[in-house]
């Protein structure tokens, strides 16, 4: 007796409909395309309005300074801050470094304990590791199966040496929204500074530094249809006034917190991106949620053994992170090579370790290896979503015909009972 699987080819026969041009970009958590309106705003500052914003003696300088101050207002308005509380940086990695190292240094006499959590971006986790080497104590809170921290864990972790809590607003892989308002409230009750890495949240969901009790906040231009290489740090000036020790010394720019000639075109672009987000965020969130749910529903109705990673309730509107169990993520990406998405499988890395974020949710490595992150953005269309869904369904079905695991599961074999040979 011989059983055979008939299979001609794995290559998908799903064709892109008219109006859908390939490749499709659906990886907007990694970076987003520049909005044409942002580019338009930036252009003069590359060409005729090239002045140094710190030049106080001529119109070129005044013009640049005025543009920077307008941008500061636009950013402040989006997050409910005042312009003076916005410090420009080169991006969110720098903002996170400046926030953590600058606060740790400034408040060293008050204490040496910092609290963060395990699914933070590496810009936070690696900065914390550096601080640990320099004598600080860092608590890494776990997350629940839905990706959110437990507020009771946070409260228990606080002690009289705690100076800073840093918890992200939205996760870059699974898009879950942490309860930042409650975290901020708890911090304020205990007299602890609250920093949030809000790179993925700002411009996508409502973030208000007053209502959400945020003291320090990192944001970035290129995640919100602005340019790369520019970001900002919000530093609260009242109730409480937060002080930050500069990490880059020089001309004393940005109220002494961040020296260096300002990236005027980038800053203008960041400001414009924030202005657009302020005006369009509500409509855009509803639009993206509609697309995201359409994608999810199509995938779930056509495929078995799929599941969403992280809370659906507390989630960015444009994020869908899904595991297609018994199919390895990288092979799936190879099959949908005209669609730009990301995989939680790290088959290309030397360690072979899958995503630490997915592992923190308690997912097995096998399920983590099977995950795909879809990051929907402003310029995605319903026709694109329909094409991507059809393509993923087609390729997953083909790869499952190739998967010994899927076959075993259909035959009723319990994969956890098999003695696998690790390699």
């Amino acid at each position, binding site marked *: 007796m011989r059983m055979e699987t008939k299979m001609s080819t794995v290559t998908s026969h799903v064709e892109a409909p008219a109006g859908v041009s390939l490749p499709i970009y659906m990886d907007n958590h990694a970076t987003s395309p520049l909005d044409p309106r942002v580019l338009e705003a930036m252009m003069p500052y590359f060409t005729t309005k090239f002045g140094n914003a710190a030049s106080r003696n001529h119109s070129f300088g005044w013009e640049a300074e005025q543009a920077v101050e307008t941008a500061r207002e636009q950013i402040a308005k989006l997050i409910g801050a005042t312009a003076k509380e916005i410090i420009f940086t080169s991006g969110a990695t720098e903002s996170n470094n400046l926030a953590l190292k600058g606060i740790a240094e400034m408040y060293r006499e008050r204490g040496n304990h910092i609290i963060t959590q395990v699914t933070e971006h590496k810009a936070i986790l690696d900065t914390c590791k550096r601080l640990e080497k320099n004598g600080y104590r860092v608590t890494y809170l776990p997350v629940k199966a839905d990706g959110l921290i437990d507020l009771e864990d946070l409260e228990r972790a606080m002690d009289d040496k705690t100076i800073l809590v840093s918890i992200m607003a939205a996760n870059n892989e699974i898009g879950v929204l942490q309860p930042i308002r409650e975290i901020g409230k708890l911090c304020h009750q205990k007299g602890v500074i609250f920093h949030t890495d809000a790179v993925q949240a700002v411009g996508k969901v409502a973030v208000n530094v007053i209502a959400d009790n945020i003291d320090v906040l990192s944001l970035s231009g290129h995640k919100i249809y602005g340019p790369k290489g520019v970001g900002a740090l919000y530093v609260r000036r009242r109730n409480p006034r937060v002080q930050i020790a500069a990490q880059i010394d020089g001309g004393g720019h940005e109220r002494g917190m961040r020296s260096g000639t300002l990236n005027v075109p980038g800053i203008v672009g960041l400001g414009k991106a924030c202005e657009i987000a302020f005006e369009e965020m509500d409509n855009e969130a509803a639009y993206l949620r509609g697309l995201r749910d359409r994608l999810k529903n199509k995938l779930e109705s056509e495929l078995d053994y799929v599941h969403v990673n992280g809370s659906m309730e507390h989630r960015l509107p444009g994020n869908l992170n899904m595991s297609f169990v018994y199919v390895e993520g990288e092979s799936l990406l190879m099959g949908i090579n005209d669609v730009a998405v990301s995989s939680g499988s790290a088959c290309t890395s030397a360690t072979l370790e*899958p995503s630490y974020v997915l592992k923190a949710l308690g997912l097995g490595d096998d399920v983590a290896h099977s995950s795909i992150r879809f990051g929907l953005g402003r310029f995605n269309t319903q026709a694109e979503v329909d094409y991507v869904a059809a393509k993923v369904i087609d390729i997953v079905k083909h790869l499952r015909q*190739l998967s010994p695991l899927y076959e075993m599961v259909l035959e009723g074999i319990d994969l956890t009972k098999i003695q696998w040979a690790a390699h």
Partner: protein
Amino acid sequence: MAYSDKVIDHYNNPRNVGQLDKSSTEVGTGLVGAPECGDVMRLQIRVNPETQVIEEAKFKTFGCGSAIASSSLATEWIKGRTVDDALAIKNTDIVKELSLPPVKIHCSVLAEDAIRAAIGDWKKKNSVAETADAAAVAH
């Protein structure tokens, strides 16, 4: 990462996908890798008891494109060889044929392991003395 044309070809048109009857004495089955590592290969052979020639080979693989290609290629290469000849295939031959980059070498190692495990299983069923090599990878 860019894949070589040969990897893409095996991924798009995998050879010898399927399953042979595990319980047959002519069939040897090798199941190597682990789901948590992101690759599992199952390679099966049907051996002619008279000639010891592998007349049929089938595989199924859970893994990246390079893992799929490595196992697909392995089935192509072992078909028509005697079991002893098949044991002479080295992972480095697979690396060369598919132009695998360094991070994908483990895929070729797994394919070699799968060949050895399948042959080991067949030898055990047929009370053929195992080579030390084959015994080491069978589990």
